[in-house]
């Protein structure tokens, strides 16, 4: 009797889960496109800022940048293809979620020459919601990575605010560079996860 019940439950689960796959792909596509847009936005901001700098400042900033690090460096993320492919989809999704979340607050201080300045925080929050949906859809175990991230975020959340304003140029440069890099990370992770979950496991069109 128990086996029958178990069998029936498995069948229903299989039936139910078939539809979320299509929705999964759809949500993945939306998330990938949104993060791509954010990355392009970050790239545009960075280039604008770099263009507005003097040549001397630019060289200095290049040197400075190597020493500093981004606020998201504490988030351990795969840094090459091998590591990325070794990570599970859920791990990739959780890392992406943490990255996006880490930029929710600092993005308010991103200074942009044009209007996109105010759009970044809202876009980030929307992206975070989408990634959360994906995590919940693909969560099949008890792994809850997202729980630990807010605890780590708090000490570093005020990192950029504590710095003095006289180095605003440097800060802006670092902000923009780190933002751009992190967006590209999320884009890559989401694309790899999406391709791995696609029915044919083949991302080639």
């Amino acid at each position, binding site marked *: 009797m128990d086996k029958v019940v178990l069998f029936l439950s498995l069948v229903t689960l299989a039936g139910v889960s078939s539809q979320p796959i299509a929705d999964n792909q759809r949500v993945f596509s939306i998330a990938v496109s949104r993060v*791509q847009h954010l*990355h392009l936005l970050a*790239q545009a901001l960075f280039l604008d800022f770099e263009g507005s700098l003097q040549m001397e400042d630019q060289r200095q900033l*290049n*040197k400075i*940048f*190597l*020493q500093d*690090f981004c606020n998201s*460096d504490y988030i351990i*993320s795969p*840094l*090459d*293809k*091998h590591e*990325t*492919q070794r990570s599970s989809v859920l791990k990739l999704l959780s890392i992406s979620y943490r990255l996006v979340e880490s930029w929710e607050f600092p993005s308010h201080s991103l200074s942009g020459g044009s209007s996109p300045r105010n759009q970044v925080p809202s876009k980030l929050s929307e992206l975070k919601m989408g990634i959360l949906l994906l995590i919940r859809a693909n969560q099949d175990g008890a792994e809850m990575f997202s729980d630990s991230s807010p605890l780590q975020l708090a000490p570093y959340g005020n990192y950029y605010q504590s710095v003095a304003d006289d180095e605003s140029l440097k800060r802006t440069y670092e902000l923009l560079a780190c933002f751009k*890099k992190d967006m*590209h*990370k999320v*884009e*890559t992770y989401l*694309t*790899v996860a*999406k*391709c*791995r979950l696609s029915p044919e496991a*083949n*991302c*080639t*069109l």
Partner: protein
Amino acid sequence: MRNVQELTWLLLLVLTPRTKGGLSRPGKPTLTSCRSPEKETFTCWWQPASDGGLPTTYALYYRKENSEIMYECPDYFTGGENSCFFNKNNTSIWVNYNITVVATNRLGSTFSDSVDVDVVYIVQPNPPENVSLSVMEDKGWPFLRVAWAPPRKADTRSGWITLIYELRIRSEGENEWETHVAGQQKLFNIFSLRSGGLYLVQVRCKPDHGFWSDWSSPSQIRFPEYFHQEKSAWIVTTAVCAFIFLIITWLLHMNHGSLKHCLLPPVPGPKIKGFDEQLLKKGKSEDIFNALVVSDFPMSWSSSSNSEDLLVELLEVYIPEERENMLGASKDLGGGSFKLESSTSDSDSGRGSCDSRTLLIEKCGRPKEHEDSAEERVEREDWEDARVDTGGRTWPSVFPGLPDRPQRSLSDGLSQVLGPSEGQVCKQIKARSDINIAVSGHKESPARWSVEYVGVQTVVNDDMVILQPWGSREGCTPLHSLQERDYSQVKQVGSDDTLLLLQKVSEGTADGREAGNMSQKSATCMNSTTATGGYVDAAAAFPMTTY
């Protein structure tokens, strides 16, 4: 840390002995570029400067961000000369590399400027591979399909790298390329190509954030001549149109006459029976008219077999008013010649007063009235001939053909004229009866003519005519009733188409009395004759001979 390193390098530079002469330390190399073809490995190249006349070695050192450890290039050969290749193990993405190249010779070392490299942003893939060109057809119209494969090393299957493609095409003679963006797809259709041309196609790709690859090697294809099919279609169409045009032209030509007849109907010419155009052309009017006369307008003896159509014939014999004139005219006619006016050929013209019954009775009856008067008798006596009024007032000749046709018997003519009628129509012959002649047997008073109206019932013999007086004709009794029949025998045919009837009395009574009776009868019958029958023009009965 960094300052220490720099101090170290400066000390080395200072402590390095400088040679005198042309030799010196190597020049400052420069890093030209670092590229990653698949976002997994990358290669950096540098440009060496002057070597200072001494053998110079180059070394590349790099440092990762957030780390002070200097690493030397692991591979100087894979990338070629003056290059450093970083394999997968040594490559980290989203990590800044600080790379420096050092040129060293016996006299010293020279450092290049450091370059910060993030592998993500230096990706430049290899050109697409396996570019294939094929001509496909879409509803008869050919187009070019270009297909390619991503570069071998780029991992697009797992989504690690996303490539977008672009292709360009030009024909052989042109210099400008036509560029098409293909997106992420790996095939592309080009439609607007000229037939018979040789085309060159190249494809390149770019990662979503990176550099464009080099163009692939040109692939050639010759577009087929599909305009030939179009030409043949045009040729067929032109031939069909020409054929149709020819047919229409031929039809128009064939129906030219009818079309012309339809659009411009011809004016009908005069149609006169017996009108001979040839004679007209000759100009002999007399012959023409005679021809008209000869034609079977008055029915010929031989030609007309059905004389039933002719209902009534009239033989007009009466004394004209204008006797003197007519005498003159009759003298002219006395050769048996009969002049016909052109208008007299038509008996139906209604010209003569005797054509109509009423008129005929008036005019023609007058002599009867005068019959009893002596004066008239005298006049009649003077009158030699039967008058034939040719003035158009009367009816044309009575027996014009008789004198000229001796071979024809009167009975034949009469029989033909009268026909074996069943008595429906009573035929009347106005005959001049020579009563006196009949009585006397010879012409003592040939001039004493009297006009009577008699009806011919039958023709007994060749020269015997059974006449029927007017009075007895009221009922138009059939032929078999011969109660009051008078027999008249044709005694003589006058020279001028006159008929002398020899009246015989069947009962042997005196002819004179009979004649008188007859005259009376005829007189009585005169009034009643108007209602009966019709007159037949004897001229119509007998053919007109040419005069």
